[in-house]
Every structure is written in C-alpha cells, then in structure tokens.
C-alpha cells in the first residue's frame, strides 16, 4: 500500500507533457504533407482502431465499468451486447446516406428533409444531452485526481475544466492518432496489470475469482426474464440497448463527426466496425476487473468506497508499484482529455453551424466564425463544469451518460428513421413525432416501473408512429426535399441509361461484397459473444 508517491507525480507530469509534446510536434511537422490532412493514410489499421476506441470509451470505461462489475457482475454486459447489431444498421443505412448528403452536421439533413424547425429542435436536443453527458465525462477524471491527491472533487473538476477548455480552444491534443494509441495502450496495460496484481494477491488466484463469482451469481449475464421492470434482462439489452446504440453512434454529432470527416464511406464503415468488434471485449475486461475486485474485497474483509467509481483508481494507487500508478492515472487523464476535446469540439461546431451562422450572423467572416467557435467551446466547457458538480449523485458514470442520452435519443433516432425511410412524412409530422417521442419517454419512466434501456425503444416507436400519422394530415413532401434520402438513380429514365451503360461495359468479375461481408462478420461476432456468455453462465450455475 504505497499511495500516490512523489515518483508517481513525476511520472504523471512527464507523461502528460510528453503526450502534449508529441501532439504539438507532429501537428507542426504535418503541415503540407499528406499526414496533416488525412492522418490515417500511412498509419496501420490497428492504430486507427485503437484511436477509435480511445474516443469511444477511454477514461469513462476505466472508471465506471469496474464499479458496475463490482456491484452486479457481468449482468450489465447486455447493455453492450447489441453493439455489433447496431453497427450493422449504421454501416448499411446511416453512413451511406450521411456521406452522400455531404453534410457537416447531421442535423442539416433534417432541415433539407423536414425544414428548419426539425433541424433546430434536434440540434438543441443534442446540445442539451451532450452538454450534460460531457459534465459526466469531466467528472470522471476529476474524481481520479481527487482520489489520488486527496483534494475535494469540486476543486479538481474546476482544474480539469480549465485544462480541457484551454487545450480544446488551442486546437486539441488529439491531433495525432499515435497519442490516442499510447493512451489506449496505457489504459489496457493498467487494466491487465490490475488483474495481475489482484490475482496474485488472492491465495487461490483465478479459482477464487471463479468460485466467488459463481457463488454470488456474478456470471449471470443473460437474464431471460420477460418482465420489463428487470433492468438488465437480455430483451432489454437487445431491444432497448440496440436502439440506444444506434441512436448514440448514429444521431449524436460527437460520435458521427468522425464518420462525416472520413475520406470515404469505407473508411467510415471501418471505424464503426472496430467499435462493433472491440466494445464488448473491452467492457467484458473492465467488468471482470470489477468481479475480481469484489473477490479481493470479500477475501480481505474490506469496505468498498461509497462511490464505486473510485474502486479501480483507489486500487491502482494503493497496489501498483511506485511510478506505475502514476503512469496509469496519467493515461486516464490523457484519455479523458481526448474524449472531452472531441465532445467540446462537436458541441461548439453544432452551435456555430446550426445556430449562430443559421440565425444570428449568417454572413460573417471566417475569422468571426472561428472566434465564435472558440467562445462556444468555452461556453460548453462551463456548462459541462456546472453539471459535473452534480454528476457524483448519478451513480456509475457510464450508466449516467447513457441514461441522460436515453431521455432524448430514441425520439431523435425516430426522426432520422422517418427522414430516411418514410417518403410520405413531412415537417409537421417530424416535429410532432419528436416531441411526442420525448413526452412518451418522460411519461413512461415516471409512471411505470420499466428498465431505462427501453426508453430508447419507446422514443423510437412513438416518434415514428406519431410522426407518420401526423404527416398524413398534411401534404406529402416535395421531390427536392427527398433528394438526400432517395437514391438518385431510381428515376425511370436514369435506370434506362444506367442499364444500357452497365450492360455494354466490361464485366468486373465476382468478388465478395465488402459491406455485406463486414455485416455478416459483425452478426457472427454477436452470436459468438452471446454464446460465450451463455457457456460461462451455464458453467457457473452447474
């Protein structure tokens, strides 16, 4: 039990300075050569994959998931089991539409399809939801800092906010994919070392963990209960979690921005594909650490901290050799900065693109908009800071982020589905559906005892149904309003031209279709993950 030593503090400072130096150094050198613009071109796929994971998971997972595992074992894995299925929908439906439309903010698509009111309302919902969730993202590393330094959490929130806002305004540190890779490596190293130190401190090693886990039902990840009040039943995970993740990865600008910035559809698909494959194993790893920690606490007769988010940081600081703890805590910091950077940036981009340049100053100079964008970053940083003060009351941090999203995301996803799939729906229907979807989520969650995971399903179903029905009361949209969601080549005369050109052009040969192959791979992965969980549960229950 060494605590956070002077050596750890030195390692922490050196690591953060090193990451900042790598970011600025590469940032400068990358001007003019290809790497500056399309950073991933010469970088191996695995590095891009880790970079994607760094943005998607990072510090929040490191801090929140062990708390989950400690409390409920692997039961909450069902929240993520649907991710491969959600990615299939995104790859097949959303990415091609968004890319073809040539949009900077996804809410622009709603304006072209339904008019300005729908765009404004959905962009506003994004700002509110993502702003609140950013508060949780800010709270997480502040908590780690508070644990290791002994300072108050509120003070560390303010320090973290000042740091995060400053470097986002200066252009961000995550300019280089390699810094994300280092961060991800350090976080996973921290997780694997935690497992190593925990297991070696248990007299029976792994067998103690499996015995304790099996006896206390911690490996019961699959609950087949049809009762909708069971929060983590398989059905809540499949039905509710599926819509949660389609909405989260598909209609949240902070997540989809990477997809919109990808040079091609295939690159965009690849980044989603990596999330589809790695998110479940990563979550499993950190939940398992929670199970091991539970065994450790039980065997050593320890009392867990009141806030379970502190579990792993506390363990790292107390059990890791001097210097190593500093490295892991620094990794958490840097990874949190990377997430904060992209969240604050997307909030500011939507503020300027969807509100400021749309309603307040439509024809200002570039310099003016860039300044407005920096001011918006500061504003959202302050908004997130205020919310971060209350984030500690929300329970495990990952769940807090997802629950905040679930109030809005279902209705938002329903509106996008109407825009893409229903060519009869119009502006009035979309707005009515969006409002009705959110009201339904609010009503159901306040009046009925059902799993919060179903919030997204309710939001989607209500917004699509009401949106479509209300649309029938007014005229159908004009053809130009459908141009972004209808495949251009479907017009009969165009079909004739394409048929003739295609028929007389040389043949390509037979190759397996990439998108189809990618989706089948994700489907098999989903089956494999579910099968493995069922096997583990079967073994644990004899």
């Amino acid at each position, binding site marked *: 039990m060494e605590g956070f030593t002077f050596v750890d503090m030195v390692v922490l400072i050196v690591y953060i300075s090193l990451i900042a130096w790598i970011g600025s150094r590469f940032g400068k050198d990358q001007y003019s050569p290809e790497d500056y613009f399309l950073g991933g071109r010469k970088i191996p796929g695995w590095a891009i994959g880790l970079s994607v994971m760094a943005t998607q998971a990072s510090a929040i997972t490191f801090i929140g998931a062990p708390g989950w595992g400690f409390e409920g074992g692997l039961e909450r894995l069902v929240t993520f089991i649907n991710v491969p299925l959600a990615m299939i929908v995104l790859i097949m439906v959303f990415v091609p539409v968004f890319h*073809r439309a040539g949009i*900077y903010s996804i809410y622009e698509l709603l304006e072209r399809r339904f008019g300005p009111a729908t765009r404004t309302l959905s962009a506003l919902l994004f700002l509110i939801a993502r702003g609140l969730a950013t508060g949780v993202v800010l709270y997480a590393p502040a908590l780690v800092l508070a644990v290791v330094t002994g300072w108050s959490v509120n003070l560390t929130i303010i320090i973290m906010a000042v740091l995060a806002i400053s470097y986002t305004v200066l252009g961000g540190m995550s300019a280089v994919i390699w810094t994300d890779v280092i961060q991800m490596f350090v976080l996973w190293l921290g997780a694997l070392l935690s497992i190593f130190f925990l297991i070696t401190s248990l007299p029976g090693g792994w067998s103690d963990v499996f015995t304790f886990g099996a006896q206390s039902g911690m490996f019961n990840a699959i609950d087949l209960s049809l009762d909708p009040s069971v929060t983590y039943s398989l059905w809540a995970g499949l039905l509710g979690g599926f819509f949660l993740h389609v909405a989260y990865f598909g209609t949240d600008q902070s997540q989809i921005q990477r997809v919109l910035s990808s*040079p091609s559809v295939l690159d965009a698909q690849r980044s989603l594909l990596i999330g589809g494959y790695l998110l479940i194993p990563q979550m499993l790893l950190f939940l398992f650490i929670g199970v091991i920690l539970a065994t450790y606490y039980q065997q050593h007769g320890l009392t867990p901290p009141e806030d379970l988010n502190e579990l792993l940081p506390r363990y790292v600081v107390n059990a890791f050799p001097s210097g190593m703890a500093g490295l892991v805590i620094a990794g958490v910091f840097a990874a949190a900065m990377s997430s904060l950077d992209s969240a604050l940036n997307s909030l500011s981009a939507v503020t300027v693109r969807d509100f400021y340049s749309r309603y307040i100053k439509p024809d200002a100079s*570039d310099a003016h908009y860039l300044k407005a964008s920096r001011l918006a970053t500061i504003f959202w940083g302050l908004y997130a800071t205020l919310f971060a003060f209350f984030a500690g009351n929300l329970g495990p941090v990952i769940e807090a982020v997802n629950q905040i999203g679930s109030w809005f995301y279902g209705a938002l996803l329903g509106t996008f589905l109407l825009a893409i799939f229903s060519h009869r729906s119009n502006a009035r229907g979309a707005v009515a559906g969006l409002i009705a979807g959110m009201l339904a989520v609010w009503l159901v969650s306040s009046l009925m005892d059902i799993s919060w995971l179903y919030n997204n399903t309710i939001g989607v179903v209500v917004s699509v149904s009401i949106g479509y029905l209300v649309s029938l009361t007014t005229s159908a949209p004009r053809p130009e309003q459908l141009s972004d969601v209808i*495949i251009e080549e479907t017009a009969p005369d165009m079909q004739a*031209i394409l048929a003739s050109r*295609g028929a*007389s052009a040389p043949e*390509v040969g037979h190759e397996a279709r990439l998108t189809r192959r990618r989706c089948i791979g994700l489907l098999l992965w989903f089956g494999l993950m579910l099968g493995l969980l069922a096997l583990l549960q079967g073994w644990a229950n004899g």
Partner: protein
Amino acid sequence: MAERLTLARQLNEKAARQRLGRLGAHTLEPAWVALWAAPLGLPGKPPGAWLLGAEEMRRALLLTGTELPAQAERPGPGIQLTGATPPAYEAIRRLWLWERIATPRLWRIQALDIPPTPVWLPCWLGYRAGRQHQLTVISGLSGEVLSMLKALILGGLADAYRHAQTPGEKACSPSDIIQEERKSIGTRV
C-alpha cells in the same frame, strides 16, 4: 480561361475492377469529371492540399499534396462529364471554413487567395444490375468511393444521353446512343 489540367489516373483498370467488385459492381467504365481545384495552405507558403469542388457540390473533396498530380496528355479513354459550374472563391472559402470548424487541427490552414484551377478528375464508374440499377463512383486517384460526386455524375450521364439524342432528332434507345458515344470518344476499357 485557364486550360483544364488533367489529373493522372493512378488506379489502373485491374485495381479498379478489384475495388468495384468488392463494392458489388458488375461492370465498369472509366470517366473524367470536370471540377475545380482550390489551393489550401498557410498564407505566403506553397499549398499543402487542394479542395476539389463545383458550385453544385455541397461538400468538397480533399486532395493532398503540394502540387496537383497532373499529366501532360489530354484525358484518356472514358466519358467526359462537363455539367458542373465553377465555384465562386467565396463559396470555396466558406466550404473550407466548415471543414476547419469540424476539425480543429485544420484551423491553421486557409483557402489561399488564388483562383481555382479547372481540372479533369479521373474516376471509375461501377454498374450493378439488380432489382434496380445502381451506380458506384470511385476515385481514379485513390480508389475511394466518391458518394458526394454521384449526383453530379448522374446528371452528367443524363446530359450526355440527351446531348447524343438531340442532333439526329430521332428516338434512339439509350444503349444505341451509348455505343455511338463510346465509338466517338474511343472508349476502350
């Protein structure tokens, strides 16, 4: 008006065949699209990249490199699609502004105050026959899918068809016209 530069086709037919096959296309042909390239970089320094666009495009394409990869020869075999109109400098600058705001690491890079250069962008068009006929456009430079060019190319193909039909004023089937047009421009893919 400046002469249109021809960007050298870097993806040969074999590579395009493989790429389009993986994207589900059954047949392919080369094409050249008329676009305009605006230089990007730090003021007073040589360009670091180029923004390829046209007035009709909502978002421009990014081509990296200090110089445009041009060839001395005129465009080779393939249909030439000239339907696009040149973008105004202001429009290019604004397009780049939104790219910069979306990606902070691009903040320092500006659209340089130099008129856009007209270019021929080499592409490969892949056709898929099924319940509906589909078109896939990939870049002849990198092989990337260029979904954003699709509307422009479909418009160009329709224009080429109409243009070929007008002179004789006789009703021809699209396939007759395409055969004629391929003969006239010497397409051999």
